[in-house]
């Protein structure tokens, strides 16, 4: 019995590990979209964070600095998007896609510059799980939720903070106003541009943290395209979670759960082609999307550049 329980617990922590980078990035995306900034470039932001986090930790030997570096890396990429979509009023879908390719090339190039080509893998010790006193001794729940690395705790705090911020503060209301009707927000005295720049900053920080969760929290090394599509999955989690911090986390957890489930089923030798297993997380996402048809929560002004003198 205890065996089954510990198996389920390890299964759940695997799901949480996979959900954490998606949720961190997802929170940032939700913030940006609430302000009316569409960011297809989340993949690039995460990759920037993953790279900057690793390279900082590698050369300073400090994981704390690595995390800060990761956030900074995310900010740099995100602010390029901010400039293009707010100041230059560019098409945000194109700008985001361009950023993804740009970051993929840039990080690969810089990585090559820093370490050269070879068959040795430059690596660092990754973040170790920290058990929270008292809470971690709760059976099952403690083992799953409170024996994780520090970035997971950052995630918990961020979910709580965003939930309060979005729905219970005046700032949160202003943010929503800027995303829904920037003209009205502007007449009410809210600085639309500043709000949107700030949103991109927040998106950069959390996207960067999501990226360095992969390099610092899990693998301890960097390789080309290490994020491999998680930025896009984070966008899916935001839509599934309808821009609500808690629901975003639950959506990401569900995607992570589907992934762990497919590995467990393969390991136990369930008779199915492996390709069918790999589809599972996406099948789950599509099914949930089907159920949420007609209940779009995307802010009205997402992706539309704000021009003050236009009606």
């Amino acid at each position, binding site marked *: 019995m205890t065996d089954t329980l510990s*198996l389920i617990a390890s299964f759940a922590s695997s799901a949480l590990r996979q959900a954490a980078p998606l949720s961190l990035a997802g929170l940032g995306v939700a913030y940006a979209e609430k302000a009316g900034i569409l960011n297809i470039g989340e993949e690039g932001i995460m990759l920037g964070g993953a790279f900057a986090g690793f390279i900082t930790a590698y050369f300073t030997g400090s994981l704390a600095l690595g995390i800060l570096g990761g956030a900074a890396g995310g900010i740099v990429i995100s602010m390029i998007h901010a400039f293009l979509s707010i100041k230059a009023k560019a098409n945000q879908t194109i700008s985001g896609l361009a950023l993804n390719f740009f970051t993929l090339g840039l990080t690969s190039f810089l990585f090559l510059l820093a370490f050269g080509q070879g068959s040795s893998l430059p*690596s660092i010790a990754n973040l170790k799980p920290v058990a929270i006193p008292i809470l971690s001794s709760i059976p099952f729940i403690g083992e799953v939720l409170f024996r994780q690395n520090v970035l997971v705790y950052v995630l918990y705090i961020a979910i709580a903070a965003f939930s309060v911020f979005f729905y219970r503060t005046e700032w949160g209301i202003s943010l929503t106003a800027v995303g829904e009707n920037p003209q009205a927000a502007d007449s009410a005295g809210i600085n639309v541009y500043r709000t949107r720049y700030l949103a991109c900053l927040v998106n950069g920080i959390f996207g960067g943290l999501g990226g360095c969760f992969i390099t610092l929290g899990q*693998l301890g090394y960097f*390789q080309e395209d290490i994020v491999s599509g998680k930025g896009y999955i984070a966008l899916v989690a935001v839509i599934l979670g309808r821009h609500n911090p808690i629901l975003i986390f639950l959506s990401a957890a569900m995607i992570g759960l589907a992934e762990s489930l497919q*590995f467990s089923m*393969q*390991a136990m030798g369930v008779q199915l082609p492996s390709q069918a*297993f790999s589809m599972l997380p996406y099948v789950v996402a599509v099914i949930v999307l089907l159920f949420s048809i007609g209940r779009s929560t995307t802010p009205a002004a997402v992706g539309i550049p704000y021009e003050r003198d236009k009606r």
Partner: protein
Amino acid sequence: MKRILAVLSVFVLSLSILAAGGSGEAAKDDPIDSMALILSGPANDQGWNAVAVAGLEATAEQFGLETTIMENVSIADSEAAYRQLAAEGYDIVIGHGYQYGEPAAAVSHEFPSKYFLATESDSYSDNAASYVMACEQGAYIMGILCAGMSESGTIGVIGGFEQPSIIKEVEAFKLAAATVNPDINVMSIYINSFTDTNLGYEAAMTMINHGADVIYQVANQAGNGAIIACSEKGVYCCGNSYDQNSIAPDYVLSSTIYNMDQVMKTAVSSILDGTFTGGVYNLGMDKGVVEIAPYHSLDSVIPADLKDLVSETVEAITSGELQVPVIAEASK
């Protein structure tokens, strides 16, 4: 003026491509002096592709060839990649991976004076050949080593894509493990990626949680994640493509090594001395193409009789006394 120049240069370029395509027999007299390599991922993946790049460099040095590398070529772009490199004048174009065999044979008819090679594949024509590395021989040894080192009686093997070049390793691994311990439970997971290291990590974690205590990976770059998971959980593992001991010196028992330079040198020397014919060539331990990495600091951990069994099996395979079967169909 600038525009006229641009139009002119495009015209000249397309002419030269046409000329390269249609030169046929006349070009046969040209010396073979250049070689291009097509890769499925980045050149610095510290694995499958890095091994090929090292092989290319060694080959180029020995035969004095000019080289180029094309990275991240997807299956959809592979024909175009062969065509482009041949049109640019490279005499030998080699694709590193099973998926490049068909395109090599398909494009070979358009450039009869060039040579199109692919590794791990099964397609060929008059001027196209596939060089299959007997990876299953390495996997067989890893199966013996992993099964011999297991205390729990459960081991695991992680595959990249469920495709023939990977399946043959996974199946040979299972086969060998059963010869050491008939009751052994070998778990296998195909993660359907060669690049997503996170999937490799989680697949290994899942196996460890299900009781596996030694794990082998056949998943290129993604497999490095599996090694990280093993070192985190204090579980032994075996590497692939090159000596991966440096990733986790306390946990990587040994690795299957592919000496791509031997493969390329074999191919290039046959082209240079005129003995090249299209076909599928199997190169294994007897040719020095497949090897086993040393145990490094873990030498003392492995029981002496297991080490003897491993070296006896390596000898038997090298001498041809033991034939490791190539299984193309995945079992569960």
